[in-house]
């Protein structure tokens, strides 16, 4: 009997270790919020639709982390580079006069070559500096965002819906997507039950990309990518061109980030330019980590769980807190939780590989 109890307590400890204490706390916190919400008078269906909505906006940006983690390039702090490709696609699509859902499709189409070119350059750079990827990725992201700040002003955009009214040139900081692709995906098959709103189309789109990613990881190249991330020396000795696989993963990640920002915009209803993409990598990075990924392992499940947990906390905390103590600490909690999670992941020893 005693032995059994020791065993089971050991097993629980093992489970906690596998799951990670911070993750446990975050899950517990979210469950607590969900329980407390109705008690303090917040409308639960609204809350849940909020979480689902934010999930549909952010899911693909988080999914964009997966390929680079798999190939051993680490967390993609250079996400803003992909976001910029998406923004270029979005603005050019509008500039060319496309409207409605077509403009979304065109934005995806136009941003793809940008993502491929930027991603290739970025991947080439990351292959030169193996081992120092994350810090350089961060600053490649920052540099590209600040370079684009100048470009948004200088590039010859003319669409009156996008440029400053007075000067007639230079893009605005925020561009409304009303009449373009606002809720282009969310409106497809949308379900409304009372206060509960489910953006079916957007979720299906995420599901499609997630399925494609899952499928890719089951192909020959996908298997090679995982092996490269797990042990590059092993992969090399098995005849894999490690640099090429890493490059593919970076391009994929960059493209997904481009699509991700477009989906985010269709939900949010606005294009945000200039410094807006600056810190977009951090929420995505911490979401996938909260979902159970580590610096060199990530799965689709990690993406789904992480996005729900992260967005759940971001959306629930302000309402619940406000209703409870009339105090909105959500921003502070978001900063501490998301960065705390990244710190936790960085200080874990990368297991295995060597």
């Amino acid at each position, binding site marked *: 009997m005693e032995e059994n109890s020791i065993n089971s307590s050991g097993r629980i400890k093992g489970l906690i270790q596998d799951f990670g204490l911070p993750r446990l706390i975050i899950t517990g916190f979210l469950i607590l919020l969900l329980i407390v919400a109705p008690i303090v008078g917040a409308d639960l269906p609204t809350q849940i639709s909020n979480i689902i909505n934010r999930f549909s906006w952010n899911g693909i940006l988080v999914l964009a982390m997966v390929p680079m983690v798999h190939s051993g390039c680490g967390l993609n702090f250079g996400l803003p580079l992909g976001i910029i490709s998406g923004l270029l696609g979005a603005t050019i699509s509008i500039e060319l006069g496309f409207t409605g859902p077509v403009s979304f499709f065109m934005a995806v189409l136009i941003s793809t070559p940008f993502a491929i070119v930027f991603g290739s350059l970025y991947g080439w750079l990351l292959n030169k500096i193996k081992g120092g990827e994350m810090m350089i990725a961060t600053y490649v992201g920052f540099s590209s965002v600040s370079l684009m700040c100048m470009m948004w002003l200088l590039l010859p955009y003319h669409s009156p819906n996008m440029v400053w009214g007075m000067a007639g040139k230079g893009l605005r900081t925020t561009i409304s997507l009303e009449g373009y692709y606002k809720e282009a995906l969310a409106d497809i098959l949308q379900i409304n039950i009372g206060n509960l709103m489910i953006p079916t189309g957007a979720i299906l789109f995420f599901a499609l990309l997630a399925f494609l990613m899952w499928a890719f990881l089951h192909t020959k190249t996908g*298997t090679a990518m995982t092996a490269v991330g797990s*042990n590059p*020396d*092993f992969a090399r000795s098995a*005849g894999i*061109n490690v640099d090429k696989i890493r490059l593919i993963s970076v391009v994929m990640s960059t493209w997904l980030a481009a699509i991700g920002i477009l989906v985010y915009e269709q939900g949010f209803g606005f294009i945000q330019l200039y410094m807006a993409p600056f810190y977009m990598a951090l929420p995505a990075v911490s979401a996938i980590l909260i979902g159970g990924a580590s610096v060199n392992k990530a799965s689709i499940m990690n993406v789904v769980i992480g996005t729900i947990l992260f967005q759940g906390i971001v959306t629930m905390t302000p309402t619940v807190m406000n209703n409870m103590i009339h105090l909105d600490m959500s921003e502070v909690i978001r900063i501490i939780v998301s960065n705390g999670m990244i710190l936790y992941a960085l200080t874990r020893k990368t297991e*295995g590989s*060597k």
Partner: protein
Amino acid sequence: MDNAPLLEMRNIKKDFFGNQVLSDINLTLKEGEVIGLAGENGAGKSTLMRILFGSDVIRETGGYGGEVLIQGEKADFQSPFDAIAAGIGMVHQEFSLIPGFTATENILLNRESKKKSVLSELFSDRMDTLDRKDMERRAAEAIQKMGVNIDGSMLINNMPVGHKQFTEIARELSKEQLKILILDEPTAVLTEKEAEALLDSIRGMSRRGIAVIFITHRLHEILEVCDRVVVMRDGVVVGDDPADKTSEANITKLMVGREVSIERVSAEGEEKKPEINEENADIILSIKNLWVDMPGETVRNVNLDVIDGEILGIGGLAGQGKLGIPNGIMGLYDAGGKVVFNGQEIPLNSPRKCLDASIAFVSEDRRGVGLLLDESLEWNISFPAMQVQNKFLKKYLGGLITWRDDRAIHEVTKKYIDELQIKCTGTRQKAKELSGGNQQKVCLAKAFALGPKLLFVSEPTRGIDVGAKKLVLEALKSFNRDNGVTVVMISSELNELKATCDRIAIVSGGRIAGTLPATVPVEALGTLMISQVV
């Protein structure tokens, strides 16, 4: 007290997890005495020295048996620092120097001369300023003690290799309490002239009363400078003679001279393989002028032919380049030269080209190169075959999508688990959870799955227990016999090579020192082994 020897090691025993590596070692050392320690790799020299130096590894693996006495008093070192305090100094094979520091700074690392300052009273003595003048004086003194001239103000970065070695030795000499100095292959990186100078300085130390334990494979150096020669083999001292009463031939014999215990084991019903006839045999792999830049295992100008269907052994001491040969051919390290396989030249520096030509490789670096530790056995075994030969894949949409066939992977993994008796909980178990021996079997299975025509196996039995050893060697032999696959096996253990191979090539100094049939006595191989040691 005066009669007590400086150092006495009594009945030293050590095992690593039940694997006896030292048994009943007795060793004494008098003041100013120089002893040479000789033995093959794995004979237990390093372990013995680690015990003497209080290494962490020893304590972490359960300590040792027997006792160490320094000047008649029992010593129990908790860390290398205790050993240093007791007057033992050790110069390791790898340099332990700070590259951007001068020789002086390195010699006195963490033992710098200091001057008090105001703040050191306030905080701690780490705020003392350095007394550069005094440091220079002390370093110069140590350098002078050594008798070799090196520039104290020179950065380690800018030094030739030999001077780095001397800096290390000077560091030990600068310790006032130094009584015993252990030199682990110090001449390996020195030019002939520098080695001469080092031997001179060893004589000088001895005159000053410092006892030296000198480990080297260059036997003539031992004879030149040592008072006594201690030879170890398989964890036992097999010879302890005054240097003037022994010879190189004698030492070699002692080093390798075990009567072969695992004579060619012929399993029941095994068909006797026809003798290999070198004259008119088919050459399957021909290596010409191969050089390989593998750190620590440099290969120079190797010419070697492998006969179709044989098991060729490659032996030699560690660091002489035997590992560089397969690693270089397989493209894992920079290499040059000409390699012809099956009449077709194989481009070097490309692992893929070798694999495409049906050459497979089981690396000696099991954990680093051989395995995906974090992945399942299924992945480990099937991965190269999948990537190189498109095995275990299903094609959809007219070959547009190549899908991993998890069922086929499962089948093949199960097959090899049964065949090689891999102990595991299932095909999905992670490779890192297996024992060393079973991991090695997984590496073999990985290579077998490729169905190669030629298989390089590097150190297949390193670090695995006796039972697994036998199984691995049997598996290799039956793979060779049943599938007609040529096997090139690289191993440090001559007896293992003798028991498994048809011919044995010995590498020394990065070159092939000779190729002999496996039936020659082990002494002949041993002589070749140390013939061109650098």
